[in-house]
């Protein structure tokens, strides 16, 4: 499987990363190199094997489904690039 420039642009768009035409060409080569190397996984017989999502060896502990944190908007906003009152601010979205 080999990525073409249009696919690289589509992935970058899904990932919300702006890429220039020059970058698309470089990325295409690098991503194809990595994906080509990953193809070796096709050598493994995985018939009947359940996928493993994590490495947790201890049973998860449940807690009560209650609000147990929050209520400090100014602390949350202290790192925001732009904010107004108790809100994050972004460029106008709706005309």
């Amino acid at each position, binding site marked *: 499987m080999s990525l073409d420039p249009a696919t690289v642009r589509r992935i970058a768009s899904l990932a*919300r*990363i*702006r890429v220039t035409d020059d970058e698309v060409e470089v990325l295409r080569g690098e991503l194809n190199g*990595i994906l080509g190397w990953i193809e070796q996984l096709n050598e*493994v017989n995985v018939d009947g094997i*359940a996928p493993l999502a994590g490495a947790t*060896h201890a049973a998860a502990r449940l807690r009560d489904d209650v609000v147990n944190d929050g209520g400090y908007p100014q602390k949350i906003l202290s790192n925001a*690039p732009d904010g107004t009152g108790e809100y994050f601010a972004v*460029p*106008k979205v709706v005309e």
Partner: protein
Amino acid sequence: MLTGLTIAEAAAGLRAKKFTAEELCLAHLNAIEALNPRLNAYLTVSHSQALDQAKAADAALARGDAGPLAGIPLAIKDLFCTQGIRTTAASKILGPFVPPYESTVTANLLRDGAVFLGKTNLDEFAMGSSNMTSAYGPVENPWKRRQNPDAVLVPGGSSGGSAAAVSAQLAMGGTGTDTGGSIRQPASFCGIVGMKPTYGRCSRWGVVAFASSLDHPGPFARTVQDTAILLRSMSGYDAKDSTSADVPVPDFAAACGRGVRGLRIGIPREYRVDGMPAEIERLWQQGIVWLKDAGAEIVDVSLPHTRYGLAAYYVIAPAEASSNLARYDGVRFGLRTNGDDLRDLYERTRADGFGTEVKRRILIGTYVLSAGYYDAYYLRAQKVRALILRDFTDAFQNVDALLTPTAPSAAFGIDEKTDDPVTMYLNDVFTVNGNLAGIPGISVPAGLDTDGLPLGLQVLGKPFDEETVFAVGAEIERAAGFTALPTLRAGATQ
């Protein structure tokens, strides 16, 4: 020199009033001032906070209610959120970020009286094996090749800053995180001890996320016992991390003196790779002899899916990273580059804020999770991950621990291995399967190569059996008698 003491020695010295925590802290801050401009191990030196913490430790020692780490100066990887102290993940996108909260692991260390000297350099978002992907410049390994002392070598990665700082005696110990080898490989490259505990042993809360199912916080120090002391403080159940393990935390340091008599140590035959230097193979054989001489039984074992771990990792880790790093949108925290509309703002912010390796991994992750490719890549990699865990589970039916080399090479030059991403990925070939399986592993310095560079041996153990890993690691440490020091270190004349 105070900077050359072990944590155990310093803790005893403080209690015997041979020196104060303030003196210990100042000795380290002075060493940092002298060497850090060259090594670039620390991104932020928290000078005044460190001195305040040291004075508080002296007061606690005088009162007699000091914690086990009172006055011990540590280096904190700049991936752990520290309240009021800038935390960058070595990325431009978090350049302006000052956390309003403390990570659980660093809070545990502070609870026990530790002094934080500063925040250490790393590969951007912990993605790398050389510390060269940091947005704030590379770290210089304090070790030098005998024949070519001018060559600048990498400290390994991603926790390269902490490893270099501990090695050069700019801290007595430190924290790292290990997602594919990021504690053990830099420990091997810098001639120190690095421990990746069982998944769930140390809380991930407040650690900037890379790949959540693979990220393991853990300690660095210059001895196995010191590493055990730090791990005990760092560990423990945390309700704020849903994968935190609700299991008792043993006295890991006590396990260091157990010895290996009667233990069955597995030697996985698949851990021999093409192009591995003969001296690493020799050191591994030497390690086998050491453990045999100390009374362990050596057992040949097979982990048949070993060679596929790295490829599975480079599907799973980027997939998780692409999801975790979606939060860097230029709206809530960190860097913002303005755009024509909201989408343009996202795309420009992320283009400006992420470095090339991080972008590559986000794009690979986005691709393997995208419609039509999910089954072929992500689901298949998760099935291979299950097989790798099964290999270990089967092996541990028959042995108590495994002995392997830590890395396939010694530290390499700062200008080597940069042209092809896959070449760099191969650094983690011996460590990555421990992350996929979530089992504990330690790297212990065991010898020098012909260039005079340190090489580590790795011990892997059963889930939540860090004690056996420490016991075996301590035996290797005793047998190796590793006393070599790096060229660049506190107090050494350059």
